Each structure stands twice: as structure tokens, then as C-alpha cells.
């Protein structure tokens, strides 16, 4: 197995893309459960520039979600330094978070759910309303403004969650496997939708995913992580031009090359991880 990623065909992202919005330096994080300490993240150093889309890719148990929660300021690291826009991170309108399970408020309408993210901003009621209308339009949910989350399909629910994360116009968008709960078609449409919204917004995105294809299709950089303790193994420049046609892109040589490489690395990680269900198995076809 080669240990270095194949070189990108196109040149990597231009250096003047933007300043370093998120910086993590030698970050360690562990959790204690029932008296037992588990190291979740070990020695994470990572930086993300404005306007870049970064995927965190890796098998279960490599601390990807924990890394997002650290970057949002929901939890604090045991040691190491985290800076967002030059300061220790604090949850708020500067950072949008999209959760895997949507986390919509069941007793609030679509409109009120989206507006919810503006409550701590100090914007007036009328202005919040107006902005919510604009973002509902942006994600195509205007017709459902007065519906409750229980009445929406999975794809619509995640669009509400996306609009809620985008409405404060955050500099940083953190997304935790946002499309994992969706069916394949909806997922593909949501990826296209996300690309469209992100290109307007120009924020930095940290995108956690299990899917190799999704990581390549969406990202500028892929951070490959390994499990127990969660650590960064490699940062790969995707080097595919933008704007991308998500469907046609899959037959491009660079896409196939990256996919083969990443699949092989992840397979090795899973087969050599003692905590994995597939530990030590020979998955080569007979």
C-alpha cells in the first residue's frame, strides 16, 4: 500500500483563497465513561482557510463528530489550541451546525425553526421574519412555511436544518454526516443543493462523512482520519475543478484514482482495527 496520496492533476487550491479561519494545534480530547478514560482525539493539527470545503473522512470511532463539536466550542479540548477567527471558539451565529438527525423543534413551524438561529443575534422580529422568508425560498420550502417538522419528508427536514444553519450567514459551516439519513436520490440532490448554496456563501465548511464518493465530490481537501485514538493520517488535495457536475464527475480519471486510493486505505484501517466488526477478516474474493 502506498502511503502518499496520488498527486492532484490540476493545481491545488490557489494560495490566496482566504485567511486561516479555523486552526487546531496539537489538540487532544478524551472522554470518561464509567471510570474508564477513552482517548477520542490525539494530536490533531489542522487548519482551514476561508472559502474551502474540507471533508473529514474515516471509519466509525475516529472522533470526527468530536472534532466538529470542538470547533463549534460546544466542548473544550483537554490540551492543545483551537482558534476560530483568531479566538477560542464559542457557539453562536458565526458558526452554523448541521446535525445528522436534523434536530428540528417538533412544536415549531418550518418558519420558526429556521428563524430560531437568529434569536441570539439581536435582530428585530420583522427582520428575522424577512430573512427566514428569504432562506425558505433559497431552499425551496416557502410552501411549507407553516408546516410542522412531523409533516416533512427526510429531504425537506434536512433542508430546514440547512437553512437554519445558513440563516445567520456564518463564516463557518460544520456538517455532521448531514445526508447519511437520506435515500440515495435525495442525497444526491441535497449535495448539488449544498454546492449551490456554498458557492454563494463562501464560508469554510467542515463536512464529516463516511462516504468516499461524497467526500471527493464535494471537497477541496479530504482529511483522512484513523480510529482509536482518532488521529489525522493524511490530508489530500482533491484537485478537481469547480463548478462540478456531481454526476458526470464520477467517470473522471482523477475521481476514480482518488476513490480507489481512499477505499483501500479505509479498508485497511477497518481490517486492522481491533474494535471493528471486520477485524482480521480476509475480504478478498476467493
Amino acid at each position, binding site marked *: 500500500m502506498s502511503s502518499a496520496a496520488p498527486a492532484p492533476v490540476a493545481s491545488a487550491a490557489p494560495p490566496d483563497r482566504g485567511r486561516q479561519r479555523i486552526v487546531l494545534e496539537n489538540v487532544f480530547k478524551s472522554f470518561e465513561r464509567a471510570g474508564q478514560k477513552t482517548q477520542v482525539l490525539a494530536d490533531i493539527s489542522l487548519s482551514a482557510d476561508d472559502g474551502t470545503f474540507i471533508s473529514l473522512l474515516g471509519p466509525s470511532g475516529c472522533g470526527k463528530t468530536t472534532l466538529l463539536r470542538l470547533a463549534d466550542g*460546544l466542548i473544550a479540548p483537554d490540551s492543545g489550541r483551537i482558534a476560530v477567527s483568531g479566538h477560542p471558539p464559542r457557539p453562536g451565529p458565526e458558526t452554523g451546525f448541521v446535525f445528522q438527525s436534523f434536530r428540528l423543534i417538533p412544536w415549531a413551524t418550518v418558519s420558526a425553526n429556521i428563524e430560531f438561529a437568529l434569536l441570539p443575534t439581536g435582530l428585530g422580529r420583522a427582520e428575522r421574519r424577512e430573512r427566514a422568508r428569504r432562506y425558505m425560498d433559497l431552499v425551496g420550502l416557502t410552501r411549507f412555511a407553516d408546516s410542522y417538522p*412531523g409533516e416533512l419528508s427526510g429531504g425537506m427536514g434536512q433542508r430546514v436544518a440547512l437553512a437554519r444553519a445558513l440563516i445567520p450567514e456564518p463564516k463557518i459551516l460544520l456538517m455532521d454526516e448531514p445526508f447519511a439519513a437520506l435515500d440515495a436520490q435525495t442525497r444526491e440532490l441535497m449535495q448539488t443543493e449544498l454546492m449551490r448554496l456554498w458557492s454563494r456563501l463562501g464560508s469554510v465548511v467542515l463536512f464529516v462523512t463516511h462516504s468516499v464518493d461524497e467526500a471527493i465530490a464535494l471537497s477541496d481537501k479530504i482529511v483522512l482520519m484513523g480510529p482509536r485514538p482518532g488521529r489525522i493520517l493524511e490530508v489530500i488535495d482533491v484537485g478537481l475543478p469547480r463548478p462540478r457536475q456531481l454526476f458526470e464527475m464520477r467517470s473522471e480519471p482523477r475521481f476514480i484514482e482518488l476513490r480507489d486510493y481512499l477505499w483501500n486505505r479505509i479498508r485497511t484501517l477497518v481490517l486492522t482495527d481491533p474494535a471493528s466488526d471486520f477485524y482480521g477478516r480476509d475480504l478478498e474474493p476467493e
Partner: protein
Amino acid sequence: MTTVYRVLFMVLLIALWQIASMNVGRNLIPSPLATFHTGTAMLADGRLVGALGASLSIYLTGLFLAIVIAIPLGIVMGGIRLLGKTLEVYVYALSATPRVAFIPLIIALLGLGFEAKITVVLLGAIMPILINTYAGVLAVDTQLIEMARSVGLSRTGIFVRIVLPGSVPFIIVGLRLGATIGLINTVVAELYTAVTGLGGLLAIYGNSFRMEEYFVVVLTLAMIGVVVTETLRLLESRLSGWKTAG
């Protein structure tokens, strides 16, 4: 459609009642028609209205006090974990003790009047409201709380926007239970302390075998129960319309 079945069932009940009145001896069960006539007579001469007023004032005052004490207390117990954990054992112990056991003490302390009666109602109604409010605050969705934190909402904001609305369905269940037990305790209080109100009439007519009047009082109590629980159900469907929507 449900209304039609409900009316049909009522016709069936009245028919059974009629049959029973004809077959049980010694006039222990009055006929529906005789009961109806007695009822209109009692309404006309003011006996029923007076007793109803006395009972309702006890019931509603006791229930109101139970609500204004139990809901804030349950919220505070749920919001401050240490306080909740300290008090919950005693709350469960008190709610398992039959409240009738306290009546002699209440009479000794407060006498036989209005204060004693509303205390009996209050003691009965407060427990289910308190326990359900507490449970509702504890059952709040931690994922929604993390979402609200991530949005940047303050602790107070999270409490007001997520925790409280999330516990409303629990609180309403508590109100329904509390309202029912409160009504039971109203009658209990009127039987055990100074004999007044609908409970008083029950005792007087029951002890003197005036079964027509007695039946009128029982039916009046049943109707109060229906009105109260239906009102609360209406409130519930208004407050948690999102659950049944779609």
C-alpha cells in the same frame, strides 16, 4: 360519527337503568324519568345550584392553588438537578400516602370550613401535576438542547424556548389527573368535614334513602367531571396540535 355512537351508548345506558329501576325492589333505583323530574325540581328551587356553587368554589380554588404551586415547583426541581434529586423521594412518598389519612390532622389544624376543604383538594391535586411537570422537564430532548447551544442561545433562552415547551404535554397529563383527583377529594372533603355542597347532599339523601335526589347529585358530579376533562382535552389539542398535524 363518534357522536352518533356516543348518543347510542347513552340510550343503551338509560335503557339498562330503566330495566334496573323496574327490577330492583324497595325503590332503591329510581326510574330515569322520575330522576329527571326531581332534577328539574331541584334546579328550580335552588337546592342544586347552591350546592353546586359551594362545591365548585372549593374545587376550583383547591385546583388553582395546586396548579400555581405544582407547576413552578416541578419546573424548579427539574431545572436544578440537586434540588430535584433531594426532594423527589419525599414527593413520591407523599404521593403514595392516601391523602384521606391527613384529614384528621387538617381538621385539627384548620377546622371544618372552607380552608380545610380546599386543603384536602389541594393535597390531592398537587401530586400528579408536580410529578408530571418534573418528569416533563427531565425528559427534555438533549439533542435539541445541544442544537440550541450551538445556535448560541443562553441558558435562560434554552430553558424558555426548549425545556418549557417540551414539557407542556407532560404538564397537561398531570393537569388531567390532578383535576380528576381534585374532584374526588372535593366530595371526600365535604363528606368528612362540615357537610356542605354536593358531597353534603350525597350524605343527606343517601342516608335518608331519598334515591331520586341522590341520583341527581351523582349525575351532576359526573357532568362536572366530563366538563373539566373535556376542557383540558381541548387545551391539549390546541397546545400540542403539532403532534397530530398531518
